[in-house]
C-alpha cells in the first residue's frame, strides 16, 4: 500500500487551557475524498490549520507525503492547498491580480494564462478586473477556491467551501472537486451539509470536541447501518457522544 498523503500522529492542540484537539491520529490516502464532519467548534478548522501552517499543534507530528509540516514546511506548504472557512479578500487587488500574486507566494512563476484559465473555470472571467470587494459572496468564495489551486496542490483542504454558494454553483464546485480527484489530487473537506459528504466522500471522519469518534469508509458505514442516511447516523453518534460527555 502507498504511504498516506497525510499522517497525523497524536496531535494535540491547546489554546491556553482549552483543548481544541486531543491526541488525534489520522491518515488520509492518495486520491481519496475525505470528509471531516462534526458540529460547530468540534475542531475541524483547528486540525486543518495545524496541517496548513495557520496554527501549530501543541503536541504530536503531522506529515504530508512523508515531510514534517514543521521541519520541512517549505516542502509541505507547496504540496498543500487551503480554501479557508472565512472568506477573505485583499481590497487592493482584482481577482486576476490576486491569483497572480498567490502564484508567486506559493513559489510558482506567475502566469497570466494560468490565472485566466482558473478565472474561467470558476466563472469569474467577467469579474477579473473588478474590485474584489464588489464580488458577490459566492464569487468571493469561488475566488478562494481558485487561489488555493494556483500551485497544483497534491492535497487540498476545503473548509466549508459551499457555505453561501447557490445550488447550481455548489453542484459545479463538487464536479470540479471530482475532476481534481480524478487528476490525482487528494481532498479533505468539511461541510455541514451531510448529504454532500454522503454523495462525495470515500471516507468519513467524525470529530466531536477535539476527538475523532469514527473514521470509516462511507460504504461500510452505510452498510453497517442498514442503508440509513449518513445524516441520521451522524446525528445519532453526536448525540450519543454528547450524552457521554454530559454524564
Amino acid at each position, binding site marked *: 500500500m502507498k504511504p498516506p498523503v497525510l499522517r497525523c500522529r497524536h496531535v494535540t492542540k491547546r489554546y491556553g487551557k482549552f483543548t481544541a484537539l486531543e491526541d488525534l491520529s489520522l491518515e488520509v490516502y492518495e486520491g481519496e475524498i475525505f470528509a471531516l464532519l462534526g458540529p460547530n467548534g468540534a475542531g475541524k478548522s483547528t486540525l486543518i490549520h495545524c496541517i*496548513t*501552517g*495557520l496554527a501549530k499543534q501543541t503536541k504530536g507530528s503531522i506529515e504530508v507525503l512523508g515531510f514534517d509540516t514543521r521541519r520541512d*514546511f*517549505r*516542502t509541505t*506548504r*507547496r504540496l*498543500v492547498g*487551503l480554501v*479557508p472557512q*472565512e*472568506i*477573505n*479578500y*485583499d*481590497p*487592493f*487587488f482584482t481577482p486576476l491580480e490576486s491569483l497572480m*500574486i*498567490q*502564484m*508567486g*507566494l*506559493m*513559489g*510558482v*512563476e*506567475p502566469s497570466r494564462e494560468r490565472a485566466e484559465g482558473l478565472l474561467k473555470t470558476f466563472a469569474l472571467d467577467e469579474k477579473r478586473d473588478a474590485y474584489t470587494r464588489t464580488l458577490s459572496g459566492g464569487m468571493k468564495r469561488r475566488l478562494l477556491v481558485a*487561489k488555493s489551486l494556483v500551485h497544483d496542490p497534491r492535497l487540498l483542504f476545503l473548509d466549508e467551501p459551499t457555505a453561501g454558494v447557490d445550488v447550481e454553483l455548489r453542484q459545479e464546485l463538487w464536479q470540479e472537486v471530482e475532476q481534481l480527484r480524478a487528476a490525482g489530487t487528494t481532498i479533505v473537506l468539511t461541510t455541514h451539509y451531510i448529504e454532500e459528504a454522503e454523495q462525495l466522500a470515500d471516507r468519513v471522519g467524525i470529530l466531536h470536541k477535539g476527538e475523532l469518534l469514527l473514521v470509516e469508509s462511507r460504504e461500510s458505514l452505510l452498510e453497517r447501518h442498514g442503508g440509513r442516511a449518513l445524516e441520521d447516523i451522524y446525528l445519532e453518534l453526536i448525540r450519543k457522544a454528547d450524552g457521554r460527555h454530559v454524564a
Partner: protein
Amino acid sequence: MSTIVLKTLFIKEIRRFSKVWLQTVLSPLVTTSLYFLVFGVALGSRLREISGVPYIQFVVPGLVMMTMIRDSFLNTSSSLFQSKINGTITDILVAPIGAFEMLLAYVGAAMIRAIIVGTLVYLVALTFTWFPLHHIGWTVFFTIFVTATLAMLGIVAALWAERFDHLAIFPNFVLLPLAFLGGVFYSIDLLPEPWNTISRFNPGGRAGFVLGASRSHQRVAAQWLQLAKLVIMGGQA
C-alpha cells in the same frame, strides 16, 4: 529559500502602498509642506537663527526624519494589521516562506516607501531653502537604520494590536511628542530643565540632528555612538 516567494511578497507590499499613493505619498508631502510654510517660512522669518543656522534650514532634517519614521512605521503596521483583520494573512501563512523572509519583505517595502517620501519632502524643502547634504555616508546610514527599526516596530505593533486605535498609539502618543520635544522645530538647548535632559535621550531627535549635522563631525560621531549604545543595550535587555 525561494526568491520568487520573497520577491512576490515584497512587490505586493510596494504595490499596496503605490495603489493608495494619495494617502501614502501625497498626504505626508502636503503635511510637511505645511510645516515648512508655517514653521520655516512664516515663523522662521522672525526667529532668524538657531545654533548658528537659519531657522528654515534648521527644521529641514528633522522634518525629513520625522516623515521617514512615521511612514516606515505606518507601512508595516497598517499593512500587517489590515491583513490580520481581513483574513488575507492566511495567504501568507500558508505560503512556503519563513519568518525571516517575511520580515525582509515587509521591512524592505516599508523602507522603500519611507525613503521615497523622505526624498520628496527633502525636494520640497529645497524649493523653500537651499540645504545641501554634508554627510552623505551618515545620512544613508541613518536613513537605513531608522527606517528599518521603525518598520520592525510597526510589525510588532500590528501583531500586538487588536483594534485600529491601538495602532494610532505610536504615531500620536509617542512619535508626535518626540518630534516636538526632540528638537525638530527648535534646538533642545532652548528647553528649560527637566525637558532639556529628557530630550537628550530622545533618539528621534538625535537621528534628525545627525541628518542635519553640517558642522561638527566629532559631535555627530559621539551622538551616534550614544544612540547605538542605547539601541544595542536596549535590545539585549
